[in-house]
Structure formats: structure tokens, C-alpha cells
């Protein structure tokens, strides 16, 4: 196998990254793929998903994975660290996985390691059709070779002994799923020197200042970010907190969301979603919320006190007004992402609040779904590389 070295400089440390191909080659391949993606959206992707994938495989986006991890590209020369891909890599994806599957596949292509992706055994998933599409459209080169020779998709039942084999042989284990599911994978015997990342059940929120809550753009962004997957998306806000707002501010935001929703999500929902929204409307009322159904039952949006429990229902969004302390104390224990629309999100006030909240990400609302080399607080992508300290 080829060994191509690319040096990166992070200021205090130079890293020589050893890849089985030149970085420029695989980025060129992704560029060709991206051009091919401009054609018709293949089944079963929806337009928004495909558009996000297209932006994700962009040259700058993929280069940023390296620069965020190792620093800026630098001329050849001595390095403090050698970084070479660990392999094999094993990834577990649950049945209902969405873009996470394709997204992690894209990032795994960059080290080019041998990879097995366990996919759902009985459900629609996106990684299988994405890999199939890539195998058809990637130009001959390192990306096509990786897809053809180094990627295996594995559809097995939960109790299949292949899970144990994967865990035993993998140098890196990455598991997405329910808390129970990822705990089960981590409990499988594995080498003590291997790396394991368990991404379990998480929740997200949006924190919006009362002034910015009145901006039409924020309202539309909230609908887009929530509407694509609703509560099923771990990075979608189940609750929007109008920071330092009044109950009237929360109600006004609810009403704007209800008004704008059909414009932004024009399609009628499936019958079972419409029905679930109606049920959630009744349950929310019992729980102390003031719920409203969007036209054609596209969604249920409710406003109410921060102490009221969020009702689990796929297209139900809850709006509350609270100060930062209340927002933090009533946030879910498994908070992953806070999407912000605040006047000064960089201020020390927010640094402290974010730390207290337990959130792993604090990003603009529009970037809540953006996947990257650090997830849930873990630098899992960096761990795809074995690092060798070199002192000369």
C-alpha cells in the first residue's frame, strides 16, 4: 500500500499524516462526486438531505476536517508526530439512521482505512444507497478503490455473533444508537488498546434571545432545522427557550412559527404524523402547554412554562421563556446541542452557561445538524489515527 505524507502545522506541533493516497487525490475524487451529485436526487434521499450532503463533501469542508485536527498544511520537513490510520474501523448504525450514516462514511473515507459499517437489518437507511450511488459515480481513483475494496456494509440482526467479531477485531469502534444499544456494543470484548466511541441518546435545544426571536429569518430557520426530522433528530431542538423573554414572547414566537410553517414545509405530512400531532396536542395541553396545530396538522407547536415536560412526538416543538439559569436547570440531562440565536454568543456569560448546561455543542441554530470530526465532545476522527511521537 502507498504511504503518502502530508505535513500539517498547528503552531506548537507539526504532524506528518500518512495516508494511503495523496490528500489532493481523494479531494479531487470528492470534487468529481460533488459535480455528479448535481443530477437528479436519487431515492430514497429527499432534496434537503442531498443538498446537505453536497455541501458536506465540498473541498473546503473536507480540508477543514484535517486543519481543525492537525493544523494548516505545511511544507515537507521534520514533524513532532507521525499520524497513521488505525484499522480496521467498525461502525454501528441503528435502523432509523439518517444522514449520520452517509456523513460518517464521508469522513471515514479521508483516512482510507478498512471499514465495516453495520447497518439496520430491517429498515430503510441512507448509508447503503449512498455507498451504492458512490460506487457507481466515483471516478477511478483512491475514493473508488476505498469504496470498492475497503468498505463493507453488514446487515445483521441484533443477536448475530458478527457483532462480537467486529468488536474483537476493530482498532476503532464507533457506535450510534440508543443508550442500551451502544452500551451493549461497548460491553462486547475488545482489545484494550482499541478506541471506542459510543454515541447514545441525546437531546437538543435552541436558545434564542427575545429580540432575535422576532426576526423572520430566525423563525424560518427554526422551522427548517426542526422540520426536517423533528424530534427524531438528536440535533433538532425539541424545545426553544426565549432567553430572558416573557410568556408573551414565547406565545408570539409560537404563533409566528405556526404561521410560517406551511410556507417552509409545504407538503402535507403522512397520515400517521398528522394523527400523532393531534395526540401530542392533547397530551401537551394536559402537561400545561398551550398547543396549536399547524395547518393540515403538519406540526404541533406549544408554548408554556419552562418546568412543563416536553411531550415526545416527532413533529412537536415546544417554546418557553426563561432566564439562563432556568433554561439550564430545566434542560434535559442528555443535552447535546444548544443552537443559539443570541446577541453575543461569544460572551463569557454564555461560556459559563453552556458549561453548566452539560451541552456538547453550542452553535448557531442554522448549524445544529452540522456533523464534524468532534461529536458529542469526543474527537473521534482524530482517534482514527495512531500517533507516533518523534523526537529527533
Amino acid at each position, binding site marked *: 500500500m502507498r504511504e503518502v505524507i502530508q505535513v500539517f502545522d498547528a503552531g506548537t506541533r507539526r504532524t506528518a499524516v500518512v495516508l494511503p493516497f495523496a490528500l489532493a487525490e481523494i479531494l479531487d475524487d470528492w470534487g468529481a462526486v460533488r459535480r455528479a451529485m448535481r443530477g437528479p436526487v436519487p431515492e430514497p434521499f429527499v432534496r434537503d438531505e442531498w443538498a446537505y450532503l453536497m455541501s458536506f463533501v465540498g473541498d473546503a469542508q473536507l480540508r477543514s476536517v484535517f486543519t481543525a485536527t492537525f493544523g494548516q498544511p505545511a511544507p515537507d520537513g521534520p514533524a513532532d508526530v507521525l499520524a497513521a490510520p488505525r484499522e480496521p474501523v467498525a461502525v454501528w*448504525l*441503528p*435502523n*432509523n*439512521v*439518517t444522514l*449520520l*450514516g452517509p456523513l460518517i462514511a464521508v469522513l471515514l473515507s479521508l483516512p482510507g482505512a478498512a471499514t465495516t459499517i453495520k447497518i439496520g437489518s430491517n*429498515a*430503510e437507511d*441512507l448509508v447503503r444507497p449512498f455507498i451504492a450511488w458512490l460506487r457507481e459515480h466515483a471516478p477511478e481513483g483512491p475514493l473508488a478503490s476505498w469504496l470498492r475494496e475497503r468498505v463493507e456494509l453488514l446487515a445483521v440482526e441484533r443477536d448475530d455473533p458478527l457483532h462480537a467479531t467486529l468488536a474483537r477485531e476493530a482498532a476503532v469502534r464507533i457506535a*450510534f*444508537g*440508543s443508550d442500551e444499544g451502544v452500551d451493549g456494543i461497548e460491553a462486547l470484548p475488545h482489545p484494550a488498546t482499541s478506541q471506542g466511541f459510543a*454515541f*447514545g*441518546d*441525546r437531546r437538543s435545544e435552541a436558545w434564542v434571545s427575545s429580540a432575535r426571536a422576532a426576526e423572520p429569518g430566525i423563525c424560518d430557520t427554526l422551522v427548517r432545522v426542526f422540520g426536517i*426530522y*423533528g*424530534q*427524531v*433528530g*438528536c*440535533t*433538532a431542538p425539541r424545545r426553544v427557550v426565549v432567553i430572558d423573554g416573557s410568556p408573551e414572547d414565547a406565545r408570539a414566537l409560537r404563533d409566528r412559527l405556526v404561521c410560517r410553517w406551511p410556507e417552509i414545509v409545504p407538503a*402535507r*405530512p*403522512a*397520515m*400517521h404524523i*398528522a*394523527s*400523532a400531532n*393531534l*395526540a401530542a396536542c*392533547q*397530551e401537551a*395541553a*394536559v402537561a400545561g402547554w398551550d398547543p396549536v396545530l399547524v395547518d*393540515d*396538522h403538519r406540526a404541533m407547536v406549544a408554548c408554556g412554562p419552562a418546568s412543563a415536560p416536553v411531550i415526545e412526538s*416527532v413533529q412537536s416543538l415546544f417554546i418557553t421563556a426563561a432566564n439562563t439559569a432556568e433554561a439550564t436547570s430545566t434542560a434535559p440531562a442528555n443535552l*447535546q446541542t444548544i443552537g443559539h440565536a443570541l446577541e453575543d454568543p461569544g460572551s463569557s456569560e454564555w461560556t459559563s452557561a453552556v458549561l453548566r448546561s452539560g451541552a456538547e455543542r453550542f452553535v448557531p441554530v442554522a448549524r445544529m445538524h452540522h456533523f464534524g470530526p468532534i461529536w458529542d465532545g469526543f474527537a473521534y476522527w482524530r482517534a482514527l489515527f495512531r500517533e507516533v511521537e518523534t523526537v529527533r
Partner: protein
Amino acid sequence: MNPVLQRSALLDRPPFGPREDETLLAELLALTHRHLAGCPEYAAMWPDWSGAEALTELPFVHTTVFKHMRLRTEGEGIAHQREVRSSATSGQAPSAISLDAHSAERQAVSTRAVLEDFLDPHPRPLVVLDSASALRSRALGARTAAALALRPLSSDLRFVLGAPEDPESLDWDAVLATLGDGDELLVYGFTWMLWLGWAQADVPERLREVRVDFVHSGGWKKLETISVAREEFDSALLATVGAGSRVLDYYGMTEQIGMIFPLCPHGVRHVPTWGDVLVRDPWTLEPLPPGEVGMLQLLNVLALGAPYHSVLSEDVGQLVPGPCACGRGGRTFVLDGRVPKAELRGCANA
């Protein structure tokens, strides 16, 4: 006695006689006010409701709510007893309905009247494809509750499964012992259980001399997955027993206990006069005319202990226009199945 607790006037009418929708509306309005006063959760769901001039304007509870909440109406004369729980297929939480003596009495009257209209009213031994252990549970399962509703038509009752979820554990000796020297038998089971436990079994020869009325409910979902059609189901059952035997399929929900909607030989389901079925557009809730498919809202005057007198189900169907050729009067509908579910595509962690 509180007038609401008095027996419904409609329960004294023939189940499938002329409809008296004004009386029905009046009784349902009284029930609605009672539940609004005695069930705070129900009142929270309908804070602005002030009255109805038509059945379509009556408030309802979505069936899913019963899976997540224990609704109870407190008030004069109501003593809550056991719960009935749905069978909770498809991995969902079961619905739980609180039973009380007044409602149970009405429900028994309702079930008996409907079944007597479709089956011979004289008592005969009843065997139930369930395990007797189900009776000892604090919460009554939907299957057991349905079986017990047939008690008024039975002279003797026996639960004949060794294990509650295993139709192949059917104890044929117990069936024959219950039958004794008789030549008539009533058999109840969930549809899929009757298929696997009876229609697919080596049935004792003695039963070929017996006239059997099979009564089943619980739906076709499990049989559809193994491609068993209704005609095949009926003929397989009838092939095991004597001449004159019949198969009666009825639709009912745990959230509508006591209300059963039998399928007549002309393929439609009949609504008793003490209840009604509305069909609603799933996206607007507009009531739909006969022939248009929507979600079924089921109403009854039997439910005193909790607001299950008006339930929006996730079953899908359509009203059928005109009188039924079977001669029964009243409203009829066709049940088309459940609201179609699709896998929710979401982030891995949900």
C-alpha cells in the same frame, strides 16, 4: 340517582333499529359535561368547548392518549375497579381503560344485545382461546375482557390455552370436557389465535358433530403477514366442525369497551343505536361523507369512569351509504385497516 348514572334509554332499544340521534346527542352531551367536570386532564384538552349541536361537534380523546395517561373521571356513584389493557402490538405501550361498576353494567348489556342479534341467544358452553392465568392479573387484558363479554351467552366457560401467547398450547381435552354430551359450542379467540390454534390444528373428530359459533376479534394484521384471506380463514375453521356452524368477526377497541361492531354477511360493520361512528379527514378533522376514507371516531353512551365515550381512533374506514341488505337498520361502515405507519427517519440517537 344522578341522571347520568341512570341506564341509557338507548340501551332498551333494539341494537340495529331506527337511529335516535337526538337522544344519542343528548346523552353524549350529558356524559361530556360529566367528564369535563370529573376528569381534569380531559378538561385541559378542551378548555374552550362549550357545547355541541351535532355529534360531529363533540370533543374526543385521541386513542394514543390512553397509551400515555391514566384518565379517570371522578364523581358521584363511580367506584373505579380494574383496568383493561389493550394487547399493545407493534411494540407500543398498551392503552389502559379504567373500569367501574356502572360502565361495566352498560357494557355487558351492550355486548349481549349486539351478539344476540347475530348469534342464537340460548346459552351453550364457551371455550376461550386464552389462558386462565390471564384472569388472575390485576389488569384485565383486552382478549380476556372480550371473552368475558360473551359470558351472558354461555352455560359454562373454560379457558383452554396452557400458555397465554401460545395458540398451540390449546388443550383439546379441556374443549371436549367443556362440551360434554352437548352438540353446540361457542368459541372465542383473537383472530390470529383461532387460525394458528384451531384452524391449523388436528381438531378432534368429535367436534365434527358439533355446531360451533366462532367469534373472533383483534384484527387481521398478523394473518395478512402470512397471507391468510378472510374466506380461507372462515372455511378452514368451518371445515373442522359440524354443519350449521358460523364465524362472526367483530371490531372493537379497548378504548371502546362494550361497543362491538360485527361484520354482517354483506361485508359491512353495524353500529348499535347507543353509539356512532364518524369518519374524519386526518389533516383537517372535517367529517367525511359515506364513501370517503378517514380516521374513525367512535362514540358510545357506556363510558362513565373515563372519557372514552368519544375516541378518535387510528383505525381507518369509511361510512357505507344506504340500508344494508342483511336487513339490519342503522349506520354501517367498512374498516379498511390502521393508519399506515412508516419508519421514522431520524438521527441515530432518537
